[in-house]
């Protein structure tokens, strides 16, 4: 997989570069689509795979997302999110739509409960530039108490509402809300600098 930037660059430079890629997509530049794919496909595929647990379905979601970017790059709003967040949340949303269509909410919960922790090895696309940030995100998620990480994973990867999490796990709704809030407070505080670098 080629890395478009052989040298480390600042996050703001990457964000600018990503926005430029979308501008080239609007102009119909196929090479820009290939470059966008090279940058983000491994992360988006991992996300779709995590949600769906089905490589074929994940692959279809990834293709849909990039075709959406190709056809609707003009709808991207840089005031609303970075390009990476736009693509990640689009992928998550589409994968969860499929998950719900398959009506496998219970199975998802079982997967989340039994699967390996999120923080794994530090390899990945854009590893030269993003390695430190990825390590921080993994470390902070890994540092969350297990019960807080559980509700976050069920919401983020399972697409479960807090009421659904309560019904699925038997945890009182108020406890689900408290755990979610505590997790978010910790992550927001811990990743503060990384977040601002994306703006």
């Amino acid at each position, binding site marked *: 997989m080629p890395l478009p930037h052989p040298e480390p660059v600042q996050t703001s430079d990457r964000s600018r570069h990503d926005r430029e890629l979308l501008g080239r997509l609007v102009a119909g530049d196929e090479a820009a689509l290939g470059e966008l794919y090279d940058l983000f496909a491994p992360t988006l595929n*991992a996300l779709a795979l995590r949600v769906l647990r089905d490589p074929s379905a994940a692959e279809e979601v990834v293709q849909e997302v990039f075709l959406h970017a190709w056809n609707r790059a003009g709808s991207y709003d840089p005031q609303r999110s970075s390009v990476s967040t736009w693509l990640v949340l689009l992928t998550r949303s589409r994968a*969860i739509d499929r998950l719900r269509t398959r009506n496998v909410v219970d199975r998802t919960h079982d997967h989340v409960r039994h699967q390996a922790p999120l923080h794994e090895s530090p390899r990945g696309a854009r590893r030269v530039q993003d390695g430190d940030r990825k390590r921080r995100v993994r470390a902070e*998620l890994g540092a969350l108490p297990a019960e807080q990480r559980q509700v976050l994973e069920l919401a983020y990867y399972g697409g479960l509402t807090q009421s659904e999490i309560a019904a699925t796990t038997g945890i009182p709704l108020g406890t689900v809300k408290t755990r979610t809030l505590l*997790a978010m*407070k910790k992550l927001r505080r811990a990743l503060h600098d990384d977040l601002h670098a994306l703006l």
Partner: protein
Amino acid sequence: MGGEGHDRALEELLRALDEAAVEGEGTTGGGTTGAAGGGARVDDAGARRLHRELLGLLADALEPQAPPPDLRRRLLAAARAAR
């Protein structure tokens, strides 16, 4: 299809972040108002964007998984056909 507007789980996570901002560092993210535990809200588009970015960052916790090698070729062919 394609947006997240119908995504209640995502919206609840965003609301939790808004509340965390109110209870935590106050206006660090920008434009938060409301009392902790009741009516917490984010007035500022910048603060809400910050929270969206945090949810985007969570994908960084996953080990990247390269799609099948031919997906790139198929994608570019489909894109060409779509124009």
